[in-house]
């Protein structure tokens, strides 16, 4: 770079010198000018001071830990203790104070709150809606616990395995809390046998439940406890248990007053079931669904539908709480438009709308398996008589209890087939609805 002899250009020389970009041949000129120009020397001193001061800008050079955590969280990485980037400079008390100033702390907290809100809001919203709807349904049915208790799901939800959910409120599943509202559960409803593990803890729970079902409608948990502890069999049970700890409480409490008049005479239907072996269907979900869909290709001919058309049956096995695989079979019409050329070389266009039986492997992902409402994705890879079939569905399932599930979703499907060595596809879009039972 050429510099002419002027004050401004010596400043340029000075800046280049400070930036390490000054050519050696110009250094001599700059140094000569510095010896003669006091203003230039002052500027050199000030610019050096500014540069040095900038390097102490700890606030700029230190990303807040909250920002790092937020980034890692957004990318699905767990936060680590060492995520804060060390500043390249020594912290001065003043700058440290600046870093922990209320304003900055407020920013960090706001950032954390914002991230937490974004991450949790959808779950909270789903949980809230689920809880409200479940509460409304239960209240309108007048039987707060009938479903869960009668089919044994209550204990499986509230501590069958660990027992630590006993005093919880059901979490996001929307199940009502154990405390308090037992009194409102179905006075006058005949208790049904249900399966429980034969442990002392669960037997006590069972006794409380059963007796509370026979209790006046305004009974409370306290009265339930009193009912339990005032059982005439209680001393005998304690004695039996103290004599032989292996004795189950259900064995120690053989006579449970099933009826409100306390006849102590259980009917066969009311006899509590003993522990049963797991069903071979455990983990299996059987479902049926219907489809209302339209061909994406404009269908010029009506569908030739054969009953049951646009319906499917499936069986899924739960690999985990979120993942299930299985098989699915159905019957559905697909509009086809394809081309072929006859031996004479004439090209024909074929349009038809037949119904095909299809089957395939299914996979389902349930996002919130413990919630009453849960988004899910369902895909099927299969085949028909004439070619392959792929279908995918996203939707929301509603579980009024742990066994039954209704679903509604948007579905896309496509049939793939070949004509004259050319592949064609018949895509469809629509809505799927159905119900399933989990064993």
């Amino acid at each position: 770079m050429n510099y002419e002899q002027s004050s401004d250009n010596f400043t340029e020389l000075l800046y280049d010198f400070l930036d390490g970009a000054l050519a050696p041949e110009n250094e001599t000129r700059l140094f000569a000018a510095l010896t003669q120009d006091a203003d230039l020397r002052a500027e050199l001193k000030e610019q050096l001071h500014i540069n040095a001061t900038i390097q102490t800008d700890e606030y700029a050079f230190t990303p807040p830990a909250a920002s790092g955590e937020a980034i890692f969280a957004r990318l699905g990485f767990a936060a680590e203790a060492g995520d804060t980037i060390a500043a390249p400079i020594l912290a001065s008390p003043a700058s440290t104070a600046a870093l922990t100033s209320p304003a900055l702390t407020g920013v960090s907290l706001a950032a954390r709150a914002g991230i937490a809100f974004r991450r949790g809001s959808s779950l909270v919203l789903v949980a809230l809606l689920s809880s409200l709807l479940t509460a409304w349904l239960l209240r309108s049915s007048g039987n707060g616990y009938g479903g869960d208790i009668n089919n044994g799901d209550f204990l499986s939800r509230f501590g069958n395995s660990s027992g630590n959910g006993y005093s919880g409120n059901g979490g996001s599943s929307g199940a009502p809390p154990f405390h308090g509202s037992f009194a409102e559960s179905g006075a006058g409803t005949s208790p049904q046998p249900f399966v429980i593990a034969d442990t002392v803890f669960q037997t006590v729970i069972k006794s409380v439940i059963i007796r509370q079902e026979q209790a006046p409608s305004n009974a409370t948990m306290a009265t339930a406890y009193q009912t339990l502890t005032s059982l005439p069999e209680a001393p005998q049970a304690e004695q039996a248990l103290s004599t032989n700890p292996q004795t189950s409480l259900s064995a120690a409490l053989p006579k449970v007053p099933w009826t409100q008049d306390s006849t102590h005479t259980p009917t066969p239907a009311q006899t509590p079931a003993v522990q049963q072996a797991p069903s071979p269907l455990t983990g299996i979900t059987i479902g049926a669904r219907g489809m209302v869909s339209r061909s994406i290709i404009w269908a010029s001919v009506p569908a030739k539908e054969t009953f049951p058309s646009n319906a499917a049956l499936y069986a899924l096995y739960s690999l985990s709480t979120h993942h299930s695989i299985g098989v699915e079979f159905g019957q559905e019409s697909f509009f086809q438009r394809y081309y072929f050329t006859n031996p004479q070389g004439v090209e024909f266009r074929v349009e038809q709308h037949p119904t095909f039986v299809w089957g395939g492997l299914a996979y389902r992902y349930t996002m919130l398996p413990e919630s009453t409402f849960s988004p899910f994705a369902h895909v099927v890879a299969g085949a028909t008589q004439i070619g392959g079939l792929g279908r995918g569905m996203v939707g929301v399932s509603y579980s009024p209890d742990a066994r039954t599930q209704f679903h509604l979703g948007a579905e896309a499907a496509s049939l793939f087939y070949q004509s004259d060595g050319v592949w064609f596809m018949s895509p469809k879009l629509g809505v799927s609805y159905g119900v399933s039972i989990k064993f």
Partner: protein
Amino acid sequence: MFNYSNRSDEELFLLLRSSTALGSQASSSAEREAAFRELYARHGKRVHAYCVRAVSSSAQEAEDIFQETFVRFFNAAQTERTMTNVPAFLLRIARNLCLNHKRDSRPTYVLNDDDLHHKAQEYGTTELLHLITTALELLEDDQREAFVLRKYDGCSFQEIAEITNTTENNARSRVHRAQAKIRSILAPYLADIDQHL
């Protein structure tokens, strides 16, 4: 945990990929995380300095842009085939986010001269830093950006030119004009500082 401190930026960038779509070997989740953490540790300071000093007068906006920069950087790693200058790429992402942000809401900053006098009562490093950062707000956007890229991020004039889509001479000129303007803004205070030094 993987130790990637001796890997180059380019190697780490390739490790961020989760698929083989671009021909390179897919990394495991743990490898991607370790590579990303290493890149964040290396360049987080520079990007943050740019966001805080060149982007916005609002700390919250700067933090938002800083976070978004690294998230987009990670996502871009899934599609970008090659990467020769990771810090420049990061700063370009931050700059684009900044421009988008400014297009949506152009902030104004009013310098309170009384505040300058008040803050300059003591001439320690922190006070001068406050004056410098306040003076930065008075610069034109392109000058402030070039100055921050040069003085805070240590970018060469060529890198500044690439990041800001200008020529190297323009980048040099912007930095120098920013330096001169900051000096003129701070002249009364710098004169006092000279006397105290």
